[in-house]
């Protein structure tokens, strides 16, 4: 089969997709064409399935259904983000058991019993299984049909590409740009293929320690500007695009030539997925999920999107929040798992940990005391009471304690306690949420500010509850 795919590639090249390799033997072309037709006829059904599933990619309802099913059925082995765990990564360009929609559908239906994957044929409807495949394909990232060309150059300053300098070309099965392919001293290396990036946000091609590395990036046939110095980056298009990478070996040293290339989010604070083989190494140790199972977990780490000095707390109910020791505010609540701290404990730990869930609210919004501008938050620390943290702080000359409890993912309750003082009234500032509402003393609050009368013992509480 691989042999056959190889022929197909050569054929596609000969038909004008690439002029790197010319097949001059007419008989061979005829043979391949015949084989090709034969395959398509016998797989007419598969081709039809492919079409049906690919069309679903434009149907956001079906993709969303696929997501729900995926998270129930597949996420435990393949990862909530499809990046793989005991099961394979399902969003990169490496498909061990076939890459077409019908291949993927077939594999979900029949499973791989020896590898521990059950078949789902008969358990879910054809329509449901199509939705799952569509969702998986919608999360596709990185190269597809990646090809390379190596041109041998006269010396380190030679920049002129011509056909007679082409010494090697081919397809890369795992779709990761392999900068170690050339075996000559002076070369230009070109990678080309379809390329997938997130549809709903900008992303960038990022090269670690890329200062001395000469690269050109073309997106859909247009050169993209190189930004930055030490770690340069290039803005990519959203979703599917044609990507061409041209690398000039120039005077680079051997270890510099193995380029570490990764796609990041727009401000480069999150490394999304690797593009090159070396980039894969950079990201290989970037997943370390901290999940509360039987008791609350407290983590102080750099967290993406959260201010410094945030302490995150994960409850076994899968409700999580972050308390900030400089503002004495709850700066975020998210539903799901606590954190992937991998990016913050890998290498030098430059990148922030990633919250693993959906935010109810996040910075700049927060749950805090409506206070005078010059009020200084004086954080004292936390104590563990039956495993749960109780934060202590002083604000506007009042000492508070704050703890949280959560029975299920429908609610999270904050208990405040005023120490050694009587306050007739105080005001909390509440951030707006979409799927949850604020409740205090069994009364809902739709306002941004809520006035509370503490109990005689100085306690009061607010909670978030999911809308029915």
């Amino acid at each position, binding site marked *: 089969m691989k042999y056959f795919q190889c022929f197909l590639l050569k054929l596609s090249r000969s038909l004008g997709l690439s002029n790197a390799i010319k097949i001059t033997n007419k008989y061979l072309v005829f043979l391949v064409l015949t084989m090709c037709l034969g395959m398509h006829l016998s797989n007419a059904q598969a081709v039809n399935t492919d079409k049906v599933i690919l069309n679903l990619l434009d149907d956001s309802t079906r993709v969303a259904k696929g997501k729900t099913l995926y998270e129930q059925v597949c996420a435990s082995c393949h990862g909530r983000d499809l990046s793989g765990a005991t099961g394979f990564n399902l969003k990169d360009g490496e498909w061990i058991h076939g890459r077409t929609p019908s291949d993927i559908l077939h594999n979900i239906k029949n499973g791989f019993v020896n590898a521990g994957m059950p078949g789902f044929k008969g358990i879910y409807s054809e329509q449901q299984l199509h939705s799952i495949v569509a969702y998986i394909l919608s999360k596709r990232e990185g190269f597809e049909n990646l090809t390379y060309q190596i041109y041998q150059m006269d010396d380190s300053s030679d920049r002129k590409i011509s056909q007679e300098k082409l010494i090697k070309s081919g397809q890369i099965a795992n779709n990761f740009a392999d900068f170690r392919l050339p075996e000559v001293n002076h070369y230009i290396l070109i990678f080309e293929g379809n390329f997938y990036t997130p549809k709903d946000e900008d992303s960038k091609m990022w090269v670690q*320690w890329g*200062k*001395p590395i000469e690269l050109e990036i073309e997106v859909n046939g247009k050169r993209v500007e190189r930004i930055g110095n*030490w770690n340069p980056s290039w803005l990519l298009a959203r979703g599917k695009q044609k990507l061409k990478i041209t690398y000039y070996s120039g005077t680079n*040293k051997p*270890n*510099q030539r193995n380029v570490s290339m990764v796609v990041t989010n727009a401000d480069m604070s999150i490394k999304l997925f690797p593009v090159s083989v070396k980039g894969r190494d950079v990201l290989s140790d970037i997943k370390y999920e901290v999940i509360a199972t039987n008791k609350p*977990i*407290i*983590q*102080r*780490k*750099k967290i993406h999107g959260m*201010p*410094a*000095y945030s*302490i995150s707390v994960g409850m076994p109910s899968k409700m999580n929040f972050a308390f900030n*020791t400089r503002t004495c505010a709850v700066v975020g609540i998210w539903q799901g798992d606590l954190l992937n701290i991998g990016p913050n*404990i*890998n*290498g*030098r*730990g*430059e990148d*922030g940990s990633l919250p693993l869930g959906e935010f109810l609210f996040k910075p700049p919004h927060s749950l805090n005391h409506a206070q005078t501008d010059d009020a200084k938050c004086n*954080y*004292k*620390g*936390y*104590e*563990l009471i039956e495993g749960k943290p109780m934060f202590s702080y002083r604000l506007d000359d009042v000492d508070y304690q704050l703890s949280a409890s959560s029975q299920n993912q429908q609610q999270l309750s904050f208990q405040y306690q005023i120490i050694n003082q009587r306050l007739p009234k105080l005001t909390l500032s509440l951030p707006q949420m979409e799927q949850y509402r604020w409740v205090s003393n069994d009364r809902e609050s739709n306002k941004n500010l809520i006035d509370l009368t503490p109990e005689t013992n100085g306690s009061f509480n607010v909670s978030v509850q999911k809308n029915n």
Partner: protein
Amino acid sequence: MIKLPLIIGTVLVALFHFDCTAQQIKTDTYKPDGYKIVTIKTPEDVRFHVTGLDSDTAGVVYAATRFGDVWTYKEGNWSKFAEGLHEPTGLLVDDDGSILVAQKPELTRLADTDQDGLADKYQQFASGWEFHDNYHEFTFGPVKDKQGNYFGTLNLSHNLPEAFSLGAMGSAGGNRGFAFKVTPKGEYKPFAWGLRSPAGIGASPNGEIFFTDNQGDWVPTSKLHLLKENKFYGHPVSLIEIGDYTRESISNLSLEELSAMSEKPVVWIPHVEVANSPGNPEWDMTNGKFGPFSGQIFIGDQTQSNIFRVLLDKVNGEYQGAVINFMNGFQSGNIRVSFDNQGQMWVGQTARGWGAKGGKPFGLEKVVWDGTNPFELLDIKLTQSGFNLTFTEKLDERSVNAKSFKAQEWNYHYSGNYGSPKKNLQALAIRNVRLLSDGKTVAIDLPMTQDKVVQIDFLGIRGVSGRTVSVDKVYYTLNQLLD
């Protein structure tokens, strides 16, 4: 750790060598007789980068890890004491048995109030500096002086967009590049500035505070300083918080002006040969339980995976002295050294983000002594005409002659470049070598110039036992000649 892995003389050249392979010296193993390394098994499946290390009076070892835990080690068993901390890089068992740990955002006092072996109180003890969530903004310490004050050091940032930088490292304010003091009541005070990547701080037996700083921009080679209040230690970016300085006025200071303002180190620590990324200075107060080096300073190096000694000298009332390698061949990067009540030297290790010669990513080892008297250089003292070198056993008189010695001197170029090569390097002629009446001390004469590092090799020296030393070079920082 705590430095870019560049050993290149100029930043411009450095740009093209920016990778994570630390430069390492190629030498044989050195190890004094009677000493061995014991590797401690750390808890399974736990990332055990030990960056905070101390033990209590009962000999229980406390280790803080970069992952964010504190573990205790007692009678061969590990037990987790605290967790969820923000990359701690320092730990002190306080006099009341509570644990002070230096997280990036704060100094925290951990207490186990219900005595169940787990910390249940995480109290903020001090947090007077600013942490901007930059990876390089480590907090080192704390250590304690005789009055009960605590001291720590604060790293500069790296690649922080809002920071002021004149080279590699920067400050966005908030006492980055400062040493700080915290009174027993928890009052925070900025104490001194001009620090770069001061990865190790220690208190001497009489309560003086010393710290190391890592080679890089404005630090030509790694060094050990005595910490003094309101002094400037050479890295200019922290001046933005001092007096009327502005970014512009700091940029306009000449090298001569900056150099004149700077404190001199007690010792320069030659790059690669001795250390690239030194950790904390630890005094051997074991009263001989660790061998003949009582009272001396031991420091580990993260890059070279070795331990070296500092031999203090007091000249005209000021500290200066020498460094000499002690032992190498450790499994990972040695960032923390701590003696326990048995006279064993514990060594905390990490190699994450900054490569180490020992190949392991993390770990804990200890050095133990079996009572054998090693044959090594014990001490060196400046004289009017040269140096007295004292060895750990009586010398074979036949080896005490000028041929057994070699000497050279150099200085460093202070600038914003990443480190400095040796400047004005020249050989020195050794004269008048004589054995003093104790039979262990050799006096040598040689031409000396102030503000040079003098390297003395003593390869030819033999002990009466016939042994040669395992380390045959000592590096003396000659800030001053004797008046």
